[in-house]
């Protein structure tokens, strides 16, 4: 396989996506309606929080505005999966119908080539909404943003994004072995809904699962603590900026194994 520099890949990515977006912009109405849908689905859980805090003052020690911050962090962290890796939802069809074979024939990194097939524009709505909410809640909470903190924020958001990407992509890759990965994929996708809750409400098996096995705690709650309660965080929280990289390394191995094991389905 040809070795290309990251800069070259970046240039290629922009070239490919520019064409993709031009093609998509023909369906303006579809983009508008999808964006409205995105806003609605993003704000549903937040709406439930708002109603809930109408009756209580705090949830496991967290105020409403702190929950908004965690939720905003969550929205930003799940956006790269939505925007950049959306193509993985189609992997099961490509594997089943044999259209996946074409990805073997380009002098490009296969995962890069596969991911570049789609750029989900409506996901940008979620990202912008998340950033807006993060700024709003930071101001309301009077959080102290130093350049160093902003640096940690970027690092932790990237890491949290990789956690979300790893969970969904690994689930999607099961298609290489079981073809119809929908049950696995939808289950992995559902797990993300539990990420914005304070992990401290769980105990026993649930807590262990969400921390170590399906570590959705690292999508929003643990990294958020670095900014909300920097003085009183558990040592586990400091792992947050790095968990994503480790998980993604595993996911990449699963993908490579799958790609090498795939022989087509005969159709």
């Amino acid at each position, binding site marked *: 396989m040809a070795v290309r520099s990251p800069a070259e890949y970046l240039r290629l990515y922009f070239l490919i996506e520019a064409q993709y977006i031009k093609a998509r912009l023909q*369906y303006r*109405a*579809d983009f*508008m*309606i*999808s*964006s*409205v*849908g*995105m806003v*609605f*689905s993003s704000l*549903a859980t937040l*709406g*439930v929080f708002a*109603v*809930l805090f*109408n*009756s*209580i003052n705090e*949830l*496991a020690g967290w105020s409403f505005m702190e929950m908004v911050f965690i939720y905003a962090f969550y929205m930003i962290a799940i956006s790269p999966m939505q925007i950049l890796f959306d193509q993985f939802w189609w992997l099961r069809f490509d594997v089943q119908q044999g259209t996946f074979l074409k990805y073997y024939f380009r002098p490009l990194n296969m995962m890069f080539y596969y991911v570049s097939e789609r750029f989900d524009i*409506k996901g940008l709505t979620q990202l912008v909404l998340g950033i807006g909410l993060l700024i709003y809640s930071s101001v309301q909470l009077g959080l102290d943003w130093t350049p160093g903190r902003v640096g940690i924020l970027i690092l932790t958001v990237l890491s949290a994004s990789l956690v979300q990407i790893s969970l969904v992509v690994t689930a999607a890759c099961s298609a290489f072995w079981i073809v*119809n990965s*929908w*049950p*696995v994929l*939808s*289950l992995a996708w*559902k*797990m993300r*809904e*539990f990420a914005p*809750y*304070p992990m401290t*409400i*769980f*105990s026993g098996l*649930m807590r262990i699962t969400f921390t170590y096995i399906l570590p959705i705690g690292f999508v929003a709650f643990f990294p958020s603590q670095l900014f909300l309660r920097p003085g009183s965080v558990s040592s586990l929280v400091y792992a947050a900026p790095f968990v994503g990289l480790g998980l993604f390394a595993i996911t990449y191995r699963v993908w490579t194994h799958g790609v090498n094991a795939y022989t087509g389905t005969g159709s």
Partner: protein
Amino acid sequence: MRPYLAVARGSTLVSMVYRFGFLAAVLGNVVYLAVAFYLWKAVYGDADTIRGLTFDQTYLYVALGSTLFIVLKTYIDWSLSHEIREGIVAIYLIKPIDFQLYMLASSVGFFLLSVVTVTVPTVLLITLVFGVSLPVSPALALFPLSLLLAFIINFCFDYGVGLSGFYTESIWGISTVKDTLVLVLSGALIPIQFFPDMIRDTLIWLPFQAVYYTPLSLITLPEEGWEHVVRLGVQAGWAVILLAAGRVFYHQAVKVLRIAGG
């Protein structure tokens, strides 16, 4: 009636093909039931009741709510818009059948199958694992009727979104907006009692609450009497209105259909 019964029987058989997807939904729901248990435990803290509801009432409500979501989902919005896009819908147009009834019959099989396969294990889990008891009261006798009406109303939402496929290429956005509106405004995610009074008093007259709140309160509010009858009346009213609206929409929408060969 006979052709529709045949369709309903066929759809039951078809839905058995998707048993793994079904299993995943049930498994996902089990995780949700556990998450909801801890979440609402944390919400209640030391409080005995919030907004007049005990923890047991709220948890039972939320747990059965998410279970109903799986049971009531018809996927008609997705399949219908797909069939319109691909031109498959033409097959139905030349058959001597009522389109709306045909669609209703084709989703009733999935509904009946999931009532048994999803509800039974869920109720066992709630009562045995989480130790929340199911109150038995006369109101429970009305539950099957209310569940059927809830199914019809939810079908009407899905059917309406599916019909919008006559006008637009992709229904992702519309379907997502519908799902969100129904889930939040119906009190499926959070009981309607938790909303501020003014919003709650509006919500109880809308069709959304008829999908979840009406049938669920038959179980979780056993002490109420006439209120149940009023809610059932509202529910039946909305079922009639929405079925009629669906017929009008269909006759408008089908006029714009153009199928390019195929």
